[in-house]
């Protein structure tokens, strides 16, 4: 595997049975993601974008094929090992932010650090850095309900990057935001990719959002039908 390859899907298939019907989402799908990539995955509803993202994040398993991450196969890991792998390597950003409503911004950002061996002081420092990076240092004590959608998504981004994962997986990260706020969030993702070397895979319906990525993959009926490099 070449040095810059971070993720590789080899002949991955995903199907499930609904009643008596067998539904195939992908068949024999190949994908290579290099370190430092910022990939947007687009496609119509039901094309398998989110399923693909789930498989990259180890929350869903392929029916066939192999998934490799940083030179190691991950699709055959046990649930526990996959959970630990996910905590170490992947940061998630969701459409609806998915912050814990009973925790303030700083506590939400701290959540992934509970899975590390960092001391309380170290965790505090990491949280401050992540919140500063997303421009929310002054909102650390605010509860999610006291913040706008854009601010909540920035807290979610801080949570995703606080443990310094290699890969960020974003599922419609601007789907719930207005254009201006969406652009701010996308600029932030771009910054994380360019300045901090984070590899990003983003699922989106929005062509304007996809323009922030370095390349766009179009998925339809379980196949990549088009690969577009953004200038």
């Amino acid at each position: 595997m070449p040095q810059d390859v971070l993720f590789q899907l080899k002949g991955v298939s995903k199907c499930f049975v609904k009643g008596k019907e067998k539904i195939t989402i992908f068949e024999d799908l190949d994908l290579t993601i290099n370190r430092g990539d910022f990939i947007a995955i687009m496609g119509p509803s039901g094309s398998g974008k989110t399923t693909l993202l789930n498989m990259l994040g180890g929350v869903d398993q392929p029916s066939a094929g192999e998934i490799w991450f940083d030179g190691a196969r991950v699709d055959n890991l046990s649930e526990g090992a996959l959970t630990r792998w996910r905590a170490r390597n992947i940061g998630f950003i969701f459409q609806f932010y998915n912050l814990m409503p009973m925790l303030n911004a700083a506590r939400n950002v701290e959540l992934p650090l509970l899975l590390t061996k960092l001391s309380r002081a170290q965790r505090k420092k990491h949280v401050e850095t992540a919140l500063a990076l997303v421009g929310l240092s002054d909102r650390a004590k605010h509860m999610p309900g006291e913040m706008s959608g854009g601010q909540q998504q920035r807290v979610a981004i801080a949570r995703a990057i606080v443990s310094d994962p290699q890969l960020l997986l974003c599922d419609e990260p601007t789907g719930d935001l207005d254009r201006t706020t969406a652009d701010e969030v996308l600029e932030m993702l771009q910054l994380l990719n360019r300045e901090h070397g984070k590899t990003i895979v983003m699922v989106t319906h929005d062509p304007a959002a996809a323009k922030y990525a370095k390349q766009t993959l179009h998925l339809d009926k379980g196949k990549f039908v088009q690969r577009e490099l953004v200038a």
Partner: protein
Amino acid sequence: MSDFYLIYKNMTRKPLRLFLTCFSIFIAFLIFGTIITFKSALDAGVEMSADNRLVVFNRINFTVPLPESYFHKVAAVEGVRDVTHLNWFGGYYQEPANIISVMAVEPESYLDVYSDQLVPPEQREAWLRNRQGILVGQKLAEMYGWKIGDRVPISSNIFSHRDGGQTWDFVVEGIFHNADAQADTRMAVFHYKYFQETATFGGDTIGWLTLTTEDASLNEQVAKTIDAMFANSPYETDTSTEKAFSKAFIEQIGNIGLIIFGVVFMAFFTILVVVGNTMALAIRERTGEIAVLKTLGFSSPRIFRMVLSESLLIALLGGLSGLAMAYFLLEGIKSTMGQFLPNLIMDGKIVIQAVGYMLLLGIVTGLLPALNALRLNIVTAFNRG
């Protein structure tokens, strides 16, 4: 922040629901603590009765007296070691509310039959010598600050004194304690002869007989012999062990055991259903959040522990408050009714038992939601959300 902080924040996110859930458990353990302590206090009398001690009552019921001659007739029955007779005096000290258990007894035989009531030899002699002397239990003496040589007036709510009034003068000649430290010693006994000479009525009969057998194995045979001896007479008898009598006496106010079991079981079952339903609902509401935690890398067993800990904490929070309230309630009852139920004490055994039930409640109500959280599939949870 720690897992405990997360548990705490989850628990307190809906304060009203937390309060109501804890309050339900509070009520359950208030009932449990109070009733079990009552039962334990009532049972204490039964447990402290000697195995080879029998009581002979009038067959009609224990308030109807027996002829004095029965004392000697029973003493002659084969297998009987010692026998004494007692009369309920219905005593109180100064105020009718200060009821004390006082009995007129045949002194020498009383000390033989109740050999577990330990009296210093010189006090024993002094009491036997002084017809006006009274032998007082240690707890009763402590309660009213009585000392050897004190003259104490004790009134009766049943009998009248020949000199007028209902008060008798006694001299404290002895203070006994029981071989079993837990035994009730809030009682006093005095000479039957003094009672016989001074009471306007009741001095020609005895209340009941208490006897010890040579061996507990002879109890049945001795009881049958005594009852057969007085069968078809105007004063038929009913002989049973002291334990059986105490139990029957307690059960006269209903089958305490059954009532307690019924109340506690129903309360627990109701609470179990309410708390279980609340916990299940609370966890179901958090399906999306649990899925997020799993996505972030929280392991399933860790989430299982967090959910179970939450329900255990709620059970302990409500349960311990309820138990504490039961304790204070019982202390209050004891201060006014202590003479009836001297063993009304919530001891360590009851507390341990209650804590065990709290843990059981927490586990039973939290297990299903915790298992659901453990098995939660992230993809399914997000799709549902």
